[in-house]
């Protein structure tokens, strides 16, 4: 049994009224709402009593129809003012006087029906079904079933936007990370289960802590791939909190997860193995905890000639291609630099414009080979411009180094070792 409420211009009111009777409601059009009234007899009595109760709750003039299927109720509510109760089996008879344009079929069918002189549901219902099928197709047959009040379908309930949030007020302020972990574990388990129930995962977790006599603490975990592992989330939050602890005792914990579709991928049989993204994220979080956030990642060269200019970004390797290039061997390889960060200040003895001795706390010795200078400069329009002469020197004590002399200050630095 379904009840339909129709009141032009009162859509939100109808939704609120219908929601008071049933959680299963469909807002078919802005001014028409259908609700599933099955089982409401026990609460409100027979359909006329239910209709009266709905009318009373609505508080505005509303057309109400109760029928055995949603479409019959909808057509009756739209076509007949006041309360209409359609007993089961008498749908065709009750709907017969309604104008056929209430069926809201395709325009070409409406035009044909008009040409044939079909004006009401009753006229349309009387047409032979085989003839309707031959002339109007499946759409025509469906409309004729609706005109007879025979259509049956499930309601399409309006879905509210999914929000995955959980929070807990603590009885006593929590100062230590360990007891806080139990609270976080409980909330994360709850969130993970709710996400799993909707076949979803998350790629972003937001933690908000309300602190005692201090501004709140917020942390956001951005995951490179959608995940649904409460243990991994807990470990990552623990690592984050231990590296950046709250400044005061915690009074309230609020967690929110951004719902996304879970990752589905099939790796190729012949591709090289790669770290599992979920496990990798956890490992990188642990490594980050050990060495600091700015010391882990994939190096990316910056588009500049400035020496040693690069940035670090999150490690997210692309899927390898099945037919990668084959190995190549060469008789020699390129020489590499080992950088000193920052460059080491050094004293350099220069004779005849050539460095002859290097003196620094860690690297010292007589120069046995010196090649240079090579002048480089850049970014003169910025405050951090560089302007220097570079030398390659081999020391008697072993080791080949790159030195540079800042032209502005005249100071010498050891920038790197060739290795």
């Amino acid at each position: 049994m379904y009840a339909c409420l129709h009141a032009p211009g009162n859509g939100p009111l109808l939704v609120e009224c219908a929601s008071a009777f049933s959680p299963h409601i469909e807002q078919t059009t802005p001014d028409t709402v259908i609700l599933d009234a099955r089982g409401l007899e026990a609460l409100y009595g027979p359909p006329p009593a239910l209709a009266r109760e709905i009318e009373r709750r609505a508080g505005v003039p509303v057309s109400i129809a109760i029928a055995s299927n949603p479409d019959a109720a909808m057509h009756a509510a739209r076509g007949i003012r006041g309360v209409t109760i359609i007993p089961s089996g008498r749908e065709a008879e009750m709907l017969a006087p309604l104008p056929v344009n209430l069926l809201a079929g395709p325009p070409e069918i409406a035009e044909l029906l008009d040409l044939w002189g079909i004006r009401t549901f009753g006229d349309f219902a009387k047409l032979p079904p085989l003839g309707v099928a031959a002339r109007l197709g499946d759409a025509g047959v469906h409309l004729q079933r609706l005109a007879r009040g025979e259509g049956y379908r499930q309601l399409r309930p309006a879905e509210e936007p999914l929000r995955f949030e959980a929070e807990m007020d603590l009885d006593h302020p929590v100062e230590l990370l360990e007891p806080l972990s139990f609270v976080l574990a409980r909330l994360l388990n709850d969130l993970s289960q709710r996400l799993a129930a909707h076949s979803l995962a998350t790629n972003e977790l937001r933690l908000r802590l309300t602190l005692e006599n201090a501004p709140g603490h917020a942390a956001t975990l951005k995951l490179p791939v959608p995940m649904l592992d409460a243990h991994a989330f807990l470990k990552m939050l623990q690592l984050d909190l231990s590296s950046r602890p709250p400044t005061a005792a915690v009074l309230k914990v609020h967690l929110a997860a951004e719902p996304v579709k879970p990752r589905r991928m099939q790796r190729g049989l012949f591709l090289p193995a790669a770290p599992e993204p979920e496990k990798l994220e956890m490992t990188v979080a642990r490594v980050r905890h050990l060495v600091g956030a700015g010391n882990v990642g994939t190096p990316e060269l910056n588009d500049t000639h400035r020496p040693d200019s690069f940035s670090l970004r999150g490690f997210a390797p692309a899927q390898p291609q099945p037919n990668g290039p084959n190995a190549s061997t060469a008789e020699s390889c390129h020489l590499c630099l080992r950088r000193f960060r920052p460059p080491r200040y050094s004293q350099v003895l220069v004779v005849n414009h050539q460095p002859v001795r290097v003196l620094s706390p860690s690297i010292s010795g007589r120069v046995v080979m010196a090649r240079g200078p090579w002048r480089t400069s850049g970014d003169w329009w910025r405050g951090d411009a560089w302007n220097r002469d570079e030398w390659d020197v081999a020391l008697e004590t072993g080791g080949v180094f790159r030195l540079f002399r800042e032209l502005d200050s005249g100071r010498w630095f050891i920038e790197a070792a060739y290795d």
Partner: protein
Amino acid sequence: MSLTAVLQLRAEIESRFELAPGLRSPERTLLPTGIEAIDRLTAGGIARGQLTEICGPQSSGRTALAISILSEATRRGECCAWVDATGAFDPASAAQMGVDLDRLLWVNCGGNAENALKCCDLLIQAGGFGLVVIDLADTPEADARRISLASWFRLRHAAERAGSALIALSRRVNAQSCSALQIELRRQRTIAKGRLFTALAIEAESRKHFRSRTVEFLAVR
């Protein structure tokens, strides 16, 4: 099916699938170094699932050899990690050598060798890395020697389980019996042309290898 077709099919299967240890061809378990002389020295490359030590004094080509191996691994689409105890890694040199930086995870331990060991252990245990390099080349010898054999054994065992090639860069041999191969490098001479320093001539000697001998190669600037 003709004999040629059968042989082609067998070669295809051998090249694509992991075979039983007895049937496995050496190419599947070795990672080429990209340097012909070193590949000759090591009979095809460094072993996967084993610890290889590359040691030598400053400017002996240790980093060049390790980055050449890194370049080969990333060229094959493998993910690699460079655990840098002192933060001396130069991304520009690696890119010049052909390393696909997108497949490289760099960890800068800021001079803490103990953290470098821990990070290396974590990364190997995560699995999926084709090559992990632990760079102790600038770590003071005393600190490197303080690393216990148990730690090296743990790393080796983890690499064996994960099937990752593990390389340790250092000044001297530290892992002793835990390493499957030790390559010792020495700088022979510095080559310069006019005002330009052009190359280092490097001598490499392999230890613990049945074809143990010495080869020479150039690290060109």
